[in-house]
C-alpha cells in the first residue's frame, strides 16, 4: 500500500510533461521554479518549536462510552474558538453556510451502512463526535487540482494551504465523511472572539480540522482532546508503545467507512 503510493507519487513526475502540454495550449510558459512539479513539497504551515510533539502518523481514538452531550459541546467550543471558526448559524441563522471542524451526530449518521438494527438505547442516542479522519489514503488530496490540500509527509496530517486554495470544492465532493466546509462568505463578521494566534480565513476557500498542527508544533495536545475529559486519546499510530496503540490493542475499535479504502486515522470505541 505504502509502497505503491510512493511509486504513484514518483510517476507524478510526468506532470512536467503535463505542464508543458497544458501551458503550451493556453499559451503560458511557466518559469523553471513553477515547473518544479509535485516534488516541491508545499511549505510547512507551522514551524516546530523545540518542545514540539512528533509522530510518524498521528491518530485519535474516541471512546464514545465516556462522552455525553455536554462534553461534546465543550470539545466543539474549544476547537471552534481557537481556530476562529465562524458561527454563521448563530450570527445569521444560515444553515447553508455552516462551518464546522468537529461536531457530534448520531451513530447512524456517523456510521451509515454500519448501523446495527437493534442498537442499545445508549448507543442509539449517544452523541458521536465526527471530524476529519486524516485518512492515510486521502481522496481529498487526490482530487485537489492545486495541492492546496496535502498530506504532511512527516506525520500524516492532512492540511490545507488557505492561500493556494482556489475554492473549486473538488475536495468536498471527494471526502466521503463530510468533514470539509466552504467559506461561502467572509467568515470574519461571524467570529465572536478572534484568536489572534490563529489565522482567520477569507471567503471562497475550504477549511477543516487540522489535528491542531499549530498546537502540536508548540508541544500541546489538540484542543478537543484536552476538553474531552479523557474520552479522546491522541498519539502516534506508528509507535507500538504509544498509549493509543495500547488502547487499540486492548479494545475493539471501528473506523468510519473502512470499505472505501481511505484508511482513517480516527478510531471509535463504541
Amino acid at each position, binding site marked *: 500500500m505504502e509502497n505503491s503510493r510512493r511509486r504513484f507519487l514518483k510517476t507524478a513526475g510526468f506532470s512536467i510533461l503535463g505542464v508543458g502540454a497544458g501551458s503550451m495550449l493556453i499559451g503560458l510558459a511557466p518559469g523553471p521554479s513553477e515547473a518544479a512539479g509535485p516534488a516541491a513539497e508545499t511549505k510547512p504551515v507551522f514551524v516546530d518549536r523545540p518542545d514540539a510533539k512528533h509522530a510518524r502518523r498521528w491518530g485519535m481514538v474516541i471512546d464514545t462510552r465516556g462522552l455525553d452531550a455536554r462534553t461534546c459541546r465543550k470539545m466543539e467550543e474549544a476547537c471552534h474558538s481557537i481556530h476562529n471558526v465562524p458561527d454563521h448559524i448563530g450570527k445569521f441563522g444560515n444553515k447553508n453556510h455552516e462551518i464546522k471542524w468537529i461536531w457530534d451526530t448520531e451513530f447512524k449518521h456517523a456510521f451509515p451502512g454500519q448501523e446495527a438494527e437493534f442498537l442499545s438505547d445508549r448507543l442509539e442516542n449517544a452523541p458521536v463526535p465526527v471530524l476529519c479522519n486524516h485518512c492515510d489514503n486521502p481522496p481529498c488530496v487526490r482530487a485537489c487540482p*492545486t495541492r492546496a490540500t496535502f498530506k504532511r509527509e512527516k506525520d500524516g496530517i492532512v492540511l490545507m494551504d488557505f492561500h493556494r486554495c482556489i475554492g*473549486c470544492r473538488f475536495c468536498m465532493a471527494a471526502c466521503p465523511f463530510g468533514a470539509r466546509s466552504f467559506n*461561502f462568505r467572509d467568515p470574519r463578521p461571524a467570529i465572536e472572539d478572534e484568536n489572534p494566534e490563529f489565522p482567520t480565513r477569507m471567503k471562497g476557500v475550504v477549511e477543516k480540522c487540522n489535528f491542531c498542527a499549530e498546537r502540536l508544533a508548540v508541544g500541546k495536545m489538540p484542543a478537543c482532546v484536552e476538553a474531552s475529559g479523557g474520552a479522546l486519546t491522541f498519539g502516534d499510530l506508528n509507535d507500538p508503545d504509544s498509549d493509543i496503540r495500547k488502547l487499540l490493542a486492548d479494545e475493539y475499535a471501528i473506523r468510519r467507512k473502512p470499505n472505501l479504502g481511505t484508511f482513517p486515522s480516527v478510531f471509535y470505541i463504541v
Partner: protein
Amino acid sequence: MLEKALKGSKTYWMWLLALAVVFAVGFVVYLRQLEFGLGITGMSRDVTWGFYIAQFTFLVGVAASAVMLVLPYYLHDYKTFGKITVLGEFLAVASVLMCMLFIIVDLGQPMRLLNVIFYPTPNSMLFWDMIVLNGYLFLNIVIGWNVLDAERNNTAPEKWIKPLIYLSIPWAVSIHTVTAFLYCGLPGRGFWLTAVLAPRFLASAFAAGPAFLILLSFIIRRFTGFDAGTRARQTLAKIVAYAVLANLFFFLCEVFVAVYSQIPEHMSHLQYLFFGLHGHDALVPWMWSSMALMVLAVIFLIIPAARQNETTLIFSCAFVFVGTWIDKGLGMISGGFVPNPLHEVNEYIPSIPEIVITIGVYALGFLVLTLLYKVVTGVKKEVAGQG
C-alpha cells in the same frame, strides 16, 4: 472573414444587443458574487456543486457532440454533412467557452485560477479536464476556421489540417470522458460511482448536441435563408434517436443495479430524485418530466413519418434538449449530493442570482455563436453566389 460578422440586418443587430444586455446583467450580478462570495447561490455545505457545474457538465456534452458530424463527414466522406459540419464545430467552440466560464464563476477564488497551472497535479482529474478542454477549443477553432476559409477561396484545406481533424475525433470523446471521471472516481458518492457514467454522459451528449443543432439549423434557415439540408437533418435526427435510446438504456442499467442490489448508498439518490426522500422532493416532477420527454422524443424520432414532418421534428428535438438538460443539468449533480455522506437530506434549489449569472453566461455563449454562424452563412452564401 471576420468582416462578415459586421454586416447584418437590423434584426441581427437587435439580437446581438439583446444578448449583450442579458450578459451585462449577469455580469453585474457576478460582481456581486465576487464581492460577497458564493453565499449568494443556493449551494450549501452539503450540496457544494450546483447549477454552474451542472451547466458545465451539460455543455461539455454539447461540445463533444460535434464529433457526430466530424466523424461521418471527414472519416467516411459523408457528403450530406458538408454544409452542417462547420456549424457543429462552431457550436463546440461556443459551448467550450461557456464551460470554461461556468468553471470560473463556480470558483471561490477565481483570481487564483492559474494555481492549477502553477502547481500542476496530475492525480487530480480537474487538471486533465483543463488540458482536454483547452485542447478541444483550440482544435475546433483552427479546424473550423481553416476549412471555412479554404471553402471561401475555393481551394482544398491545408494539408496539416487533416491530422488535426483526425485528432479531434478521439479528443471529443476524451473531453466528456474526463468530465465523467471528475465524478465517477469519488469514493462515497454512490450515485456517480458507476462505470457507466462516462458512456451515459456520451450518449446523452450525442442526443442533446445534434438535437440542438437541428433546431439551430431551422432557425438559421428562417433568418438567413441558408439551409443545411433536409437530408443532413434527417440523418442527425436518426443519430439523436439512437443516442437518446442508448442514454435511456444506460440509465435503466443503473436503476437495475441500484434497485436490485438494494445497496442504500446507491439506491437512496435515485429514490430522492424520483420519489423524494424524507419529505424532500423538489426534483421529483422534473425528473419524471425528463424521462417522459425523452421517451416521447424517441417514439417520434423513430417513426419515419413523424421524423420527416418538420413540426414534429422540431418538437422532438426540443423534447430531447430539455429532457437531457433536466437529466444532466439539474438532477445529475445535485442528485449526487443528496443525501450527503452522513446520510442526511439537505436539498438544493438554485437562487435567483445564481440563475441570472447562469443566463448571463449562456447569453455570452450565444453571442459568440451568433457571430460565428454569421460568418459561416456569409461565406456559404458568397460561395454559392460565385458558383
